[in-house]
């Protein structure tokens, strides 16, 4: 048993480094970008966070913005898990694993974004229960660490178990994964709710201190995640030869459409409250959408961004609610890209930065990420993509039966080369 598993790991290691030239080029490109990000992060370790655009007034920036967006991506896997395992939808069953692998990559990116944001990453161990001083259950950040790590473990277990059983050619025992599937459904909702509560629970930041943040986060997450998977499925189908039915893609399309409309509805609820009942608590929203005048200066760096985000989501919404258009894969792809960029802006920088403007003492300061911040972000994104590509590189041949226990001598390369030759 153990020997089989070690052989599996060794073969998976070898398979990781064999593939077509395109595979090598793609992985090399991602490695280079990730390495540049890593290099700049090491510089940040030496010089401190003064390399970023953050200030005492705007103390969270693009790192936490990306973190927030990626928690959503991770949570979105649940939109495949529910139809696949609860409603036994066969189309979803064929692809649900990709959603869970995306969740794994997204969570690891989340943890990296939190780490690069820390002033003292060397003290990360202070969060370990018993060894350190974990402020649980009081701190929402402590909750977030618990739910993110838990979600990561649950998904690693589900994916690892199902893939290894498939590799062995054995039928997976439901007892070993179904309970975790059920847990993962509730857990997916919880990771994004807790991330929302992280913001909501702050009495001094009226822009975040609103009950609608968690529903908005879920709405945007269930738009963005399935949207990215629609595109990922086409890439997997085209380059890796794994058959994914159009029906699976169009099931996701329905999910994206409904979620995007809900997200736009919730956004409009929030803007109505902020602008119709405009109190001093609306200053942040005014800053975000129209800019603020303070001591004779105009501050409005985020204004073009948020309107771009709103227009992109509206455009995506229009495409998606016209079925004959949305069924055309080109338009569907355009809608998914527009929705994702829109949401990345809206719940990233458009959510984090205005919470700090104006400051509690009434001053207005603006934020823009520096080059080092940007390169570190790109590095983490590249690393996440690298991870996702690598997991697909191993998972797809297993799912196609081309990388399995039975043919463990010599057949692996044949399987991959077939899988990766276009």
């Amino acid at each position, binding site marked *: 048993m153990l020997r089989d598993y070690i*052989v599996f790991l*060794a073969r998976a290691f*070898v*398979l990781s*480094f*064999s593939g*077509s*030239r395109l595979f090598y080029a793609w992985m090399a490109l991602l*490695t280079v970008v990730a390495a540049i990000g*890593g*290099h700049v992060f*090491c*510089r940040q*370790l*030496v010089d*401190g*966070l003064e390399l970023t655009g*953050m*200030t*005492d*007034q705007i*103390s*969270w920036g693009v790192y936490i913005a990306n973190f927030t967006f990626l928690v959503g991506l991770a949570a979105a896997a649940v939109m495949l898990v529910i139809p696949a395992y609860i409603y036994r939808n066969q189309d979803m069953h064929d692809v649900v694993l990709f959603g869970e692998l995306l969740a794994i990559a997204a969570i690891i990116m989340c943890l990296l974004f*939190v780490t690069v*944001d*820390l*002033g*003292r*990453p*060397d*003290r990360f161990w*202070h*969060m370990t229960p018993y060894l*350190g*001083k974990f*402020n649980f259950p009081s*701190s*929402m*950040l*402590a909750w977030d660490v618990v739910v993110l790590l838990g979600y990561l473990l649950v998904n690693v277990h589900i994916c690892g178990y199902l893939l290894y059983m498939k590799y062995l050619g054995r039928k997976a025992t439901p007892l070993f994964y179904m309970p975790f599937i059920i847990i993962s459904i509730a857990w997916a909702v919880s990771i994004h709710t807790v991330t929302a509560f*992280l913001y909501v629970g*702050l*009495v*001094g930041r009226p822009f975040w201190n609103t009950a609608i943040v968690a529903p908005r986060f879920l709405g945007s997450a269930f738009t963005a995640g399935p949207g990215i998977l629609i595109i990922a499925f086409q890439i997997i189908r085209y380059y890796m030869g794994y058959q994914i039915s159009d029906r699976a893609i169009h099931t996701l399309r329905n999910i994206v459409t409904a979620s995007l409309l809900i997200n736009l509805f919730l956004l409009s609820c929030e803007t109505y409250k902020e602008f119709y009942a405009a109190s*001093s608590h609306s200053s942040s929203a005014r800053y975000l959408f129209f800019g603020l005048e*303070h001591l004779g200066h105009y501050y409005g760096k985020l204004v073009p961004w948020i309107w771009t985000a709103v227009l992109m989501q509206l455009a995506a919404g229009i495409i998606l609610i016209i079925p004959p258009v949305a069924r055309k894969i080109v338009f569907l792809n355009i809608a998914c890209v527009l929705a994702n960029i829109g949401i990345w802006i809206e719940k990233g920088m458009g959510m984090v930065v205005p*919470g700090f403007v104006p*400051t*509690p*003492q*009434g*001053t207005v300061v603006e934020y823009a990420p520096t080059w080092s911040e940007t390169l570190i972000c790109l590095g983490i994104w590249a690393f996440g993509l690298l991870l996702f590509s690598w997991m697909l590189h191993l998972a797809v041949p297993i799912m196609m039966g081309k990388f399995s226990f039975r043919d463990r*001598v*010599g057949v*692996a*390369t*044949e399987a991959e*080369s077939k899988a*990766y*030759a276009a």
Partner: protein
Amino acid sequence: MPNDSDDPSRTGSSSCRADPGQEGMGRRELLKAGMGTMAALATLAGVTAPLLSLRDGPSLDEFLQRHYTQLTPEMMEKILARIEHEIAFRYGVKTSVRDYKPIPDVEFAYALNLNRCNGSRRCVYACMKENNIPLDHPEQAYIRVVELDNDSLDLEEGNVLYNHDQVPQEGKYYIPIQCQQCRKPPCTKVCPVQATWTEPDGVTVIDYNWCIGCRYCMAACPYEARRFNWSRPKFEPEQINPDMGYLSNRIRPRGVVEKCHFCLHRTRQGKNPACAEACPTGARVFGNIRDPKGKINFILKNKRVYILKADAKTIPRFYYFFDR
């Protein structure tokens, strides 16, 4: 796209590495693997190269140091000696770092007379000097003074960057804001590692050796009282105040949060905070709120007192009052 499946050496390599019982790999494969390893090592070296110039990384003792509340007096003695040694090494100054404990039955509170404050910012400068805040970082000061029109109470209409030849300006009044030492502090609640807490004498403190620098407390504070050490503070030796407290004014490391601590290295020895001492108009009154005959209680009973952002229900120990 090229199809490598016919390449016999490839197939050979993967099978024999997967199964250690077989014979060694081909020369070409060995070369490839070697080059791959070299490239990986070179990348790793390139990524981590900046770390060679790291000068203020933690020592092993500092890295393994426990939380403040878990330290025995002996451990604390060693830590204080280590910190003194570090400051001497980095800044060339001999200092005394002590761990001042709260005085029993004392709870500090502050009252500030808004009729008297003239916006001179003497408190700000005294605070910076006392608390080892680098002078080239005025934005890091624990106290900010907001200038407001006489007819306004809205901080958003205020100006913290005012710069006049003469203060007070006609038609203006001034509100200095520092840590309000809340009875229900939102900042300590959110800290994921309990690096900040409220002491029995009412002062909310930070263990600079425990803070992980996530800055959640800064987002949580409704008074914008907290500052972050974005870089390592730089000092000329003569700018350093050598009388330091572990939880208060010792030189903070890079990457941690700091804020006003009511000068506890002074006040726990019965002195006034530096800001109160420096105030030229006597606007600042500091004292023990548990002393029924004390100045603070006199003000609370006899003056028109208000607190900042009462709607946040943080219940500050910092009061503002009007004389007339």
